[in-house]
């Protein structure tokens, strides 16, 4: 099967700064991929190149098997919802109508439902909306477009937790009924972790991690207990992170741990706890800082 997106050796430089450094990846059709990473990791630059808004310095991007830049046939099959999207001086209803003309798979019923869900006033000028409501307009368009490739770049500025959950639920429900390829760029990792089938993490413009979400879960464990026992347990393993307070310590080690290792931990009175995806990615990006023990 042709990947929906395929990126090969892609680099983007701004003067002496490398925003993307030899990035290669593929996004398979019908999956929800999380594009994760810290601010400035290159997520937005990558999405802008994929959607033809920006050109790579070197390397190649193909979407639906063709170069996306200035390619109307490809661009109509995708919708890109940007963080803090700028709109012309439209009213909400007008913006929705314009979107409905542009996207071939537009679903008016879904749009209407979502406008009601997010309580968006159709007659209000978009520039008069709160930040969260402006974000909601982008989300409505992104979902109702039902584009074969749907890209969300931190689409929830100003949205509260309840509205974000509404977004995730509607996304999941509509994706289940109408499967398509979705890329969700976010730093709210733990909120979206369970929605993702595949994870790509960028760090300083490079791919730090590219794996199925199922494989990533359980790949790190926190071992904690008496410091002496922790040291004994981790003596023959790599340790990603260490912490110590008085006579107790904890260490983060690669997982999953086999039955023997688990039994040994029990015998040493140690407790084991898997890392959340968010914690894992912090360690994967190599920026884990020693936390101050209280």
């Amino acid at each position, binding site marked *: 099967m042709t990947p929906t997106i395929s990126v090969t050796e892609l680099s983007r430089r701004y003067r002496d700064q490398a925003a993307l450094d030899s990035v290669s990846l593929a996004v398979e059709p019908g999956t929800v991929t999380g594009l994760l990473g810290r601010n400035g990791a290159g997520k937005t630059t990558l999405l802008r190149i994929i959607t033809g808004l920006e050109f790579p310095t070197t390397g190649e991007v193909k979407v639906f098997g063709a170069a996306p830049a200035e390619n109307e046939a490809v661009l109509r099959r995708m919708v890109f919802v940007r963080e803090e999207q700028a709109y012309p001086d439209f009213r909400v209803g007008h913006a929705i109508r314009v979107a409905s003309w542009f996207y071939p798979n537009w679903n008016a019923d879904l749009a209407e439902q979502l406008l009601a869900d997010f309580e968006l006033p159709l007659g209000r000028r978009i520039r008069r909306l709160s930040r969260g409501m402006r974000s909601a307009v982008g989300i409505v368009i992104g979902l109702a477009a039902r584009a074969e490739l749907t890209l969300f770049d931190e689409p929830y500025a100003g949205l509260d937790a309840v509205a974000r959950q509404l977004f995730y639920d509607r996304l999941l429900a509509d994706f289940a009924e109408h499967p398509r390829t979705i890329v969700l760029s976010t730093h709210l990792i733990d909120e979206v972790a369970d929605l993702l089938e595949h994870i790509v993490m960028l760090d300083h413009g490079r791919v730090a991690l590219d794996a199925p979400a199922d494989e990533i*879960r359980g790949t790190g*464990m926190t071992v904690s207990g008496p410091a002496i026992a922790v040291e004994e347990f981790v003596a023959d393993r790599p340790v990603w992170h260490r912490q110590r307070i008085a006579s107790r310590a904890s260490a983060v080690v690669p997982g999953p741990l086999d039955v023997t290792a688990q039994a040994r931990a029990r015998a040493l009175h140690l407790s084991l706890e898997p890392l959340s995806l968010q914690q894992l990615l912090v360690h994967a990006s190599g920026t884990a800082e020693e936390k101050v023990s209280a």
Partner: protein
Amino acid sequence: MPALDEGTPLFVQIAEQLADDIVDGQLAEGTRVPSTNELAAFYRINPATAAKGINMLVDDGVLEKRRGIGMFVAVGAREQLLAARRKLFAEQYVDPMVAEASRLGIDSDTLVSLIRETSLSNGGKTR
């Protein structure tokens, strides 16, 4: 929403929770199990993950697909799950308990009588 833990792959947890329902008799043999999309919405997970969990049980013969209708609990599924779980019982429950008992200096006679008392007070049967 039911809690899913972080370490075990999600699809395994979906399969285990369905298996629990079958063992407990909540899902009787021959009844329809929730669809992939229903599970995805309920647990707030990716539908592909839910499908993987269901397929795991199909491969084990616990669920069967009836074309165009959905997934159903297979005949004999409960017995099969019970047999598999009894096999794992010693490893998962007895071994750690015995280890902890010996750490605490509880001898095996005391341990056995503790188990008997607890079992009786929970309405268990004696031989």
